C-alpha cells in the first residue's frame, strides 16, 4: 500500500492544463524530490494533494483511502501535512504557541468542547519537546515576527511535523533561507523520522541530491521521468528541459 | 384592466428607480473591484450631488443641465480630495478600517447636511421640457421617468463599450486583473485609480441629482440608502458593469412591487429574496466565485 498515490490527476483552467494525467506513487518512508522548471506546475500539484485546489478529474489516495473529495483540514486529519512557499506562521504568537496549536488541533482539543488546562500544558510540553528535537527550543518564547526569516522557515516545518503526518510535503523549504542558515534546514530534513514519507519541492539542487532517494521531474504539468538521483542527473531529456530550448532557436 | 394598469405602473416606476440605483451604484462596483476598498460612504457622493444640483437650481436659478454637470464635477473633485487625504492610506488596511472610515464619513456628512440644509427633503423642480406625461398605447407615463430610463440605458451601453473598446478601458481592465503587472507595462495605476474613483463618484452625484425625484435628498440619505446600493453591487457581482445593471433592475422592480402590493410588509420580501439569491450564488449573479 503506497503512502500516497494519485491516479490520472488532472487540472484545467479553461484551455490551460496545469496538471495532466499525473500518476504518482510514494511509499512509506520515501524521500522524494519534485523538480522541474518554473511554471511546471509543482506547487499546483502540491495544492491538489493537500486540497487547496480541486482536480478537474482523477483521484488521490492516502494510505489506500480516497481523499479526493475531502477539504484541506479533513486531509490533514487523515495524515498529510505541508509547508508553504511563503511563511504562514501566526506572527503575533510565539514559536511555542505556533507549534502548540497544531498539536492541540491534532489531538482534537481545539474545538468548542473546551480542553482543560492540563491538556493545554501537555500540548505545550509536547511542543517544547518537538522544538528541542529540532534544536529550535532556544527561540521557544520569542515572537515569530522577531525571528529572522530563515529561522521562521524552520519553525514552519516544525508546525507541519507537530501534526504527526504520515506524509509530509515541503514546498521549497530552503527558499529565502540565507546560505548561512541553510545547513540547519538540511540537518532538519536529514533528521526527519524515517517512518514519514517526505516529498520536497525544491530548486536548490544541492539539497535535492543530498536528500532524495528518488526524483520526479515535472514539466508543463506532466511527469517527464522518475528515478534515482544519479540516473536523473545524467538524463539528456532532463538536461534539455533545464537548459532551455536554445538548440531549437 | 386595473391590474394591467398597476402592472405597467410598477414596471415603469420600477425600471426608472432601478436606473437611478444603477447610475449611483455602478461607481461603487467599479471602485470596489478596482481598489478593493469597501467604500460604504459612496452614498455620500450621491447625496452631495443631489444637494449641489438642487441648491444651484433652487437658489441660484441655474438650468437643469448646468446643475447636473456642476454636481458631477464638484463631487468628482471632492472625491479626489478625500482619496488623497484619507482613502489612499487604507488601500492595504483591513476591511474593518475601511468600514469604520466609511461610517465616520457618513456620520460627518449627515451632520453637515443637517446643519447646512436642515432636516427636510429638498424641493425638486423638474424642468419643463422633460416634465409632464407621455402617452403610449393608451397608457400614460411621467415623462421624467422615461427620461431616467433612457439615461440609465445609455450610460450602461456607454460604460460597456467604453471598457470593452477603448484603450483606457483596456488599461482599467488590466489594472483590475493584476495591478503590479499593469504597472510593469507602464500603466500609471495610481493616476488611473484616482481617475476611475473620481469618475465613479461623479456618476454617483449624477445619479443622486437625477434621482432626486425618486429618492429624496435629505440628511439621512447616505445611511438610509446604503443597503440598496450594497444590494445592487453584491447581488450583481463586484467589479462588473453588467451585474449591477441587472441587479439594479431587479431591485427597482422588486422594491416598487412590494411598496405597491404589500406595503404593510415594507421591504421584507426584497431582503428575503436577497438572502435567497446570495445563498445560492454567494458571489452574486455575475460575480466571479
Amino acid at each position: 500500500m503506497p503512502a500516497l498515490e494519485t491516479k490520472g490527476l488532472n487540472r484545467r483552467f479553461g484551455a490551460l492544463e496545469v496538471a495532466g494525467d499525473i500518476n504518482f506513487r510514494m511509499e512509506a518512508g520515501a524521500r522524494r524530490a519534485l523538480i522541474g522548471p518554473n511554471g511546471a506546475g509543482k506547487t499546483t500539484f502540491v495544492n491538489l494533494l493537500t486540497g487547496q485546489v480541486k482536480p478537474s478529474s482523477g483521484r488521490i489516495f492516502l494510505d489506500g483511502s480516497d481523499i479526493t473529495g475531502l477539504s484541506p483540514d479533513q486531509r490533514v486529519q487523515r495524515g498529510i501535512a505541508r509547508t508553504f512557499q511563503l511563511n504562514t506562521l501566526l506572527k503575533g504568537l510565539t514559536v511555542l504557541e505556533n507549534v502548540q496549536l497544531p498539536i492541540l488541533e491534532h489531538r482534537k482539543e481545539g474545538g468548542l468542547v473546551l480542553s482543560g488546562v492540563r491538556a493545554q500544558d501537555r500540548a505545550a510540553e509536547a511542543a517544547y519537546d518537538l522544538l528541542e528535537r529540532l534544536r529550535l527550543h532556544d527561540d521557544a518564547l520569542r515572537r515569530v515576527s522577531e525571528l529572522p526569516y530563515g529561522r521562521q522557515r524552520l519553525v514552519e516545518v516544525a508546525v507541519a511535523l507537530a501534526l504527526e503526518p504520515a506524509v509530509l510535503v515541503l514546498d521549497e523549504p530552503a527558499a529565502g533561507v540565507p546560505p548561512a542558515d541553510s545547513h540547519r534546514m538540511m540537518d532538519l530534513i536529514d533528521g526527519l523520522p524515517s517512518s514519514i514519507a517526505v516529498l520536497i519541492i525544491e530548486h536548490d539542487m544541492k539539497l535535492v541530491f543530498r536528500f532524495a532517494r528518488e526524483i520526479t521531474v515535472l514539466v508543463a504539468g506532466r511527469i517527464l521521468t522518475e528515478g534515482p538521483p544519479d540516473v536523473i542527473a545524467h538524463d539528456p531529456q532532463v538536461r534539455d528541459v533545464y537548459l532551455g530550448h536554445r538548440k531549437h532557436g | 384592466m386595473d391590474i394591467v394598469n398597476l402592472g405597467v405602473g410598477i414596471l415603469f416606476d420600477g425600471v426608472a428607480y432601478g436606473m437611478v440605483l444603477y447610475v449611483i451604484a455602478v461607481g461603487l462596483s467599479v471602485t470596489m473591484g478596482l481598489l478593493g476598498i469597501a467604500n460604504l460612504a459612496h452614498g455620500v457622493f450621491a447625496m452631495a450631488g443631489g444637494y449641489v444640483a438642487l441648491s444651484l437650481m433652487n437658489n441660484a436659478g441655474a438650468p437643469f443641465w448646468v446643475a447636473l454637470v456642476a454636481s458631477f464635477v464638484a463631487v468628482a473633485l471632492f472625491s479626489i480630495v478625500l482619496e488623497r487625504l484619507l482613502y489612499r492610506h487604507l488601500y492595504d488596511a483591513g476591511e474593518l478600517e475601511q468600514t469604520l472610515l466609511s461610517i465616520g464619513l457618513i456620520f460627518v456628512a449627515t451632520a453637515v447636511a443637517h446643519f447646512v440644509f436642515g432636516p427636510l427633503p429638498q424641493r425638486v423642480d423638474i424642468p419643463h421640457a422633460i416634465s409632464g406625461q407621455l402617452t403610449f398605447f393608451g397608457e400614460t407615463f411621467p415623462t421624467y421617468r422615461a427620461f431616467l430610463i433612457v439615461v440609465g440605458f445609455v450610460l450602461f451601453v456607454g460604460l460597456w463599450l467604453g471598457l470593452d473598446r477603448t484603450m483606457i478601458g483596456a488599461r482599467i481592465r488590466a489594472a483590475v486583473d493584476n495591478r503590479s503587472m499593469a504597472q510593469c507595462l507602464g500603466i500609471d495605476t495610481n493616476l488611473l485609480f484616482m481617475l476611475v474613483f473620481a469618475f465613479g463618484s461623479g456618476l454617483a452625484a449624477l445619479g443622486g441629482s437625477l434621482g432626486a425625484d425618486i429618492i429624496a435628498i435629505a440628511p439621512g440619505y447616505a445611511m438610509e440608502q446604503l443597503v440598496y446600493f450594497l444590494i445592487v453591487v453584491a447581488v450583481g457581482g463586484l467589479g462588473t458593469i453588467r451585474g449591477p445593471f441587472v441587479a439594479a433592475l431587479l431591485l427597482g422592480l422588486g422594491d416598487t412591487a412590494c411598496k405597491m402590493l404589500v406595503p404593510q410588509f415594507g421591504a421584507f420580501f426584497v431582503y428575503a429574496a436577497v438572502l435567497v439569491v446570495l445563498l445560492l450564488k454567494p458571489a452574486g449573479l455575475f460575480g466571479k466565485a
Partner: protein
Amino acid sequence: MQGRAHTLAVMRATRRLRVIELLPWLILIGTYFLLPSYLPLATQIIVMILFALSLDLLLGYTGVVTLGHAAYYGVGAYTAGILAVSHWSEPISGLLAATVMAGIVGLVTGYIILRTKGLTLLMLGMAVTLLLEALANHFNSITGGADGLQGIMMPPLLGRFEFDLYGKVGYVYAAVVLFLAWLVCRRLLLAPFGRSLVGIRENPLRMAAIGVPVSRRKLIIFTVAAALAGLAGALSAQTNQFVSLNSLSFELSGTVLVVLVLGGAGRLYGAFIGAPIYMIAQDTLAKSSPTFWLFWLGLILIGIVMFSRGGVLGLVDLLQRQLKERFGRNAAKIGEAL
C-alpha cells in the same frame, strides 16, 4: 532542562488572572454604593458592555466584519419582552429562552452570511437586520410596532427581589449576568479555541492546513456571539421594561461597532472601556444637539482609523511601550503584571 521548565512556566502564566482584570468588577461594585442615582444609566452601560463583548468575539477575535449584529440583540429583546407580556413570569428563564432564540436565528442566518465575504457579507448582515425590523413593524400587534413593546411587568427576581424604581435590583441582576458571560468568554478566548479564532482571522489558509475546520468554527462563534447579543437584548428588555424598534436597527449595529472599536477590538476588555465612554458621552452631549454629537462621533471614528487603530487599549499599549523605553524594564514588568 531548566529551559524547559522555565518555558512551560511562562506558558502557564499567560492564563493567570491579572490584578488589573479585577478593576472592572471593583468599579461595578463601587458604583452601586457610591453613585446610587446613576444606577439606571449604569445598567444600560452594562448591557452595552455585554453587547459589545459579543461583537468582540465575532469581529475582534475572528475577524468577521459585520454591520448586522443588532439583529440578534433585537431578537433577544423582543423574545424576552413578548414572553414577559404573555405572562411567562420568571425573568431568568425568559432570559435563557431569549438567548437560545437569538442563537438559533444566529445559526440559520450565520450559515447564509458566512458563505460570503467582504462587502457582500456586510450587506447581508444589514439585510437580515432590516428584514427582522420589517417583520417586527408588520406584526405590531405582537411587538408594538413603532411605538415599542410596552407594559412589560417583571415579577420579582428569584421570587424575592422586586425590580424597584431606583434600579438597584436591575443593576445587580445585570452585573451578575455580565460577570457570568465574562467568565465564559474569558475561558473561551484563552483556550486553544480562542487562539484558533485569531488564527482564522489572520490566516485562514494556515488554519485549514493544520486541520482546523474553519467554516464550522466560524459558524460556531457566530452562533455564540448571536446568543450573547440576544442575552444583552433580553437583559435590556427586562431592566428597561420596554423594547423599541431601535433594537433592530442598523443604527444600533453601527453604535455597537463604534463602542467596540473605541475601546479596542480583540482584547476582551475593549467593550468594558468603550461602552462607558460612549454611553456617558452620549448621555451628556447628545441631548443638547444630536447633530453635533453625530459630527464629532464621525470625526473621532475617522481619527481612530487614521491614527489609533487599536482604540483606547491601543493607546494604552503605545503608552506602555513608551514607558518601557523611558524607564526601563522594571516599569514594564510592573505593567505586565497588571
